[in-house]
């Protein structure tokens, strides 16, 4: 058994998981349209590799870029490229951007692909390539390209693979459901990762209320007869599913501020990601679908479904019986860290783990904020051991240096402080805006530095030119003087 540690703070939240973890995992039907944003994350955009009007097959790459943080986009079903146009994309700011739109034809024809029979015969580099080509990103919500994570560089020595199945956000059950229904693909995925990383230890961490997933996983581990893998149940304290928090709980180690888990020898991967790795390596299947929880009291039949990435949420909701009349807010992700969507025509992306249709009774509809009474409850709840109240104070005053002194950038925006604040202060908003101000300021400073450098160089060049000109003039003058002198001497001689 593993000795579990614990992190400071955190919250026991009512989790509402029973809404969606009872129904069986089902396949969602092919939507009429599939929509793929070209922007993958801040500053990373992929280029369309198809023409409007072209027919594509399931599994075909439709967009790609050479950017190191970009992953290829594959069509999730066969159909015709209908448009490349601006549409609302899933983004906290509710922005629109270019998207590829496929009108599906219902035939669902796939490219013929093949996996490898035995992953153990593959070298790590080719496994990484397979993962990269399959377009796999972290399915826990951060959507960071997995192939990059698998290559932490020679100076970092990994010793532990941590499979994150601690779905700590209330309502979300997609990982739980996946582990119950497909424990093999998750665990073989883990074996592939162990193989490609040359490490000997894998911990699968799930929350202690996932009894069925635990039973299934331990059963399969026993059948695989792989002593490298252990399954542990961790206490359900939000945000245990946060990467750094989970690592602390199972290994007792803290990821250094500003560092990554690999710095302390850990690679943390979501269980869904491991399953996708299995599909990519053993079946040659790119990432075109994932399990998504559709839940909340705002939808009639909450459940988990295998959903094709690119499916508009409206179609997904329809397949789950439609909205109830009390639906108030549509959230992508969990209620603690997810973001509210302005419109259900937005399509799911690889990072979408949950669509939550909340009713007014369940969600925070905005309470009147009162002055901070310095109760310190926020500090008690903060899993990072920050002083949220001081951060609030300084970010409100626009005192960015003080914010940095109080470790603003260590804030993971988990929302614990805000949920416990008796004064209902929108604390996380203040931190977000302070962070963006600091970043904007840094960018500006950088810009100014570049401009100054340019200006300095310009001055230098000018000075140099002038010096050269002066030098030339001097030389010319000297030469002239010499000539004159020579002439004079000559004249002197002749006289």
């Amino acid at each position, binding site marked *: 058994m593993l000795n579990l540690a614990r*992190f400071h703070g955190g919250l026991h*939240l009512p989790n509402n998981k029973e809404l969606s973890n009872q129904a069986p995992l089902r396949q969602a039907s092919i939507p009429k349209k599939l929509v793929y944003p070209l922007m993958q994350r801040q500053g990373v955009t992929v280029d369309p590799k198809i023409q409007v009007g072209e027919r594509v097959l399931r599994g075909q790459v439709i967009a790609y870029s050479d950017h190191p943080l970009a992953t290829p986009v594959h069509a999730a079903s066969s159909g015709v490229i209908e448009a490349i146009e601006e549409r609302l994309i899933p983004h*906290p700011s*509710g922005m629109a951007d270019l998207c590829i739109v496929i009108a599906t034809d219902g035939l669902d024809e796939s490219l013929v692909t093949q996996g490898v029979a035995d992953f153990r015969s593959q070298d790590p580099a080719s496994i990484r390539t397979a993962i990269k080509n399959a377009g796999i990103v972290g399915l826990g919500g951060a959507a960071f390209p997995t192939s990059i994570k698998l290559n932490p560089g020679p100076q970092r020595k990994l010793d532990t693979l941590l499979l994150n199945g601690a779905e700590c956000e*209330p309502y979300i059950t997609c990982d739980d459901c996946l582990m119950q229904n497909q424990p093999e693909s998750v665990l073989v995925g883990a074996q592939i990762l162990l193989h490609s990383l040359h490490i000997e230890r894998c911990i699968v961490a799930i929350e202690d209320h996932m009894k069925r997933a635990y039973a299934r996983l331990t059963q399969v581990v026993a059948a695989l007869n792989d002593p490298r893998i252990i399954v542990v149940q961790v206490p359900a304290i939000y945000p245990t599913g946060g990467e*750094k928090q989970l690592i*602390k709980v199972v290994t007792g180690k*803290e990821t*250094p*501020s*500003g*560092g990554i888990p690999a710095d302390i020898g850990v690679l943390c991967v979501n269980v869904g990601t491991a399953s996708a790795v299995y599909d990519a390596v053993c079946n040659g299947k790119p990432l075109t679908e994932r399990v998504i929880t559709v839940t909340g009291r705002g939808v009639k039949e909450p459940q988990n479904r295998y959903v094709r990435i690119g499916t508009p949420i*409206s179609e997904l909701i329809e397949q789950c019986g439609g909205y109830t009349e009390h639906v*108030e*807010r549509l*959230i992508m*992700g969990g*209620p*603690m*860290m*997810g*973001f*509210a969507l*302005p*419109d*259900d025509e937005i399509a799911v992306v690889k990072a979408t783990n949950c669509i*939550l249709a909340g009713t007014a009774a*369940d*969600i*925070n*509809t905005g*309470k009147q904020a*009162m*002055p*901070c*009474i*310095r*109760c*310190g*409850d926020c*500090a*008690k709840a903060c899993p*990072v*051991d*920050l*002083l949220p*109240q001081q951060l609030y104070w300084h970010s409100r005053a626009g005192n960015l240096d003080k914010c940095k002194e109080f*470790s603003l950038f*260590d804030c993971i*925006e988990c*929302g614990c402080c*805000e*949920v*416990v*604040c*008796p*004064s*209902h202060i*929108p604390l*996380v908003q203040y931190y977000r805006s302070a962070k963006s101000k600091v970043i904007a300021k840094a960018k500006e400073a950088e810009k100014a530095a570049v401009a100054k450098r340019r200006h300095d160089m310009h001055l230098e060049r000018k000075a140099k030119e002038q010096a050269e000109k002066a030098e030339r003039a001097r030389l010319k003058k000297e030469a002239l003087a010499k000539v004159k002198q020579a002439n004079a001497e000559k004249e002197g001689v002749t006289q």
Partner: protein
Amino acid sequence: MKFSTALSPHVQPVNSVTRVMFEVIVALVPGVIALVWFFGLGVLINVVLAVITALMAESLVLLVRGRPVWVSLKDLSAVVTAVLLAISLPAIAPWWVTVTGILFAIVIAKHLYGGLGYNPFNPAMVGYVFLLVSFPLPMTSWPAVAGLGTMTLNFQDIAQLIFFERIPENADYDALTMATPLDALKTQLSLQKTVLEAQSGAVFGYLAGKGWEWVSLAYLLGGLWLMVRKIINWHIPVGLILGISVISGICYLIDAQLYAPPVFHLFAGATMLGAFFIATDPVTAATTVKGRLIYGMMIGVLVYIIRVWGGYPDAVAFSVLLANLAAPALDYFTKPRVFGHRA
């Protein structure tokens, strides 16, 4: 379909200022009952008078400041201030003492510094100290503990005393009032008596004085309930009790003739009220865990020092105000180590 958006977190807040304040008021009920039991119905008159004055003063100031009135009244913070001050006053204090004290607490100590959340000093204690230094006589005239006085007062007598300062016929003021145990001890010690001799006097009960010890126990009960309800943390009360116990214990060990035992200091005067209800006022206390422990201990030690060597018999109010001054510094020097940062 279109939806309105909002930023995360989307879950309902789990607490509110109103609830916190309300629970504090509820937790004070046993203490108030004990006070009424031993010192008469004047306590209730004080409380009602204080609450009405506080709500009116709060409304008026908010109107003048152009702030929404109802939202702030609803937070009940003014009510808590009023009750805390009212139960610290002698149960027969004239009405104008109560009213002046509340006005000073709400208008000057609270709103002049920016209102709820911004005041550096505990408003109730500012009000108390203001009264104590301005009107020492009515502030130290406690009615005799029930059963110890030479006469019992009915409600009418008390109301007459409070509103018209009219003493009941065939009674004199001295017969109505009585020194508190802390007062009595101080006087006796100054008369070269020993602690033991002093404690044989009628005002001293089992722990710390007839009546007073029960009131303290009632506050302790309410305080423990607040801890169970997670309205207050244990750090400040425990720190305070520890502080006062340690210093009084040391002195007691050195000379038991001269210094009262720790249990006396814990259950006499306003120690328990201070530990659980006054020092724990979040607005004016330290906020970090370590800071709160130190803050509590500081108050405990100060209470003892002022009681024993200072000019006032009870010292909770002064000690809290002095510690209020130190709270920002305590917070600054007790910042916790942030996750992932080296110690």
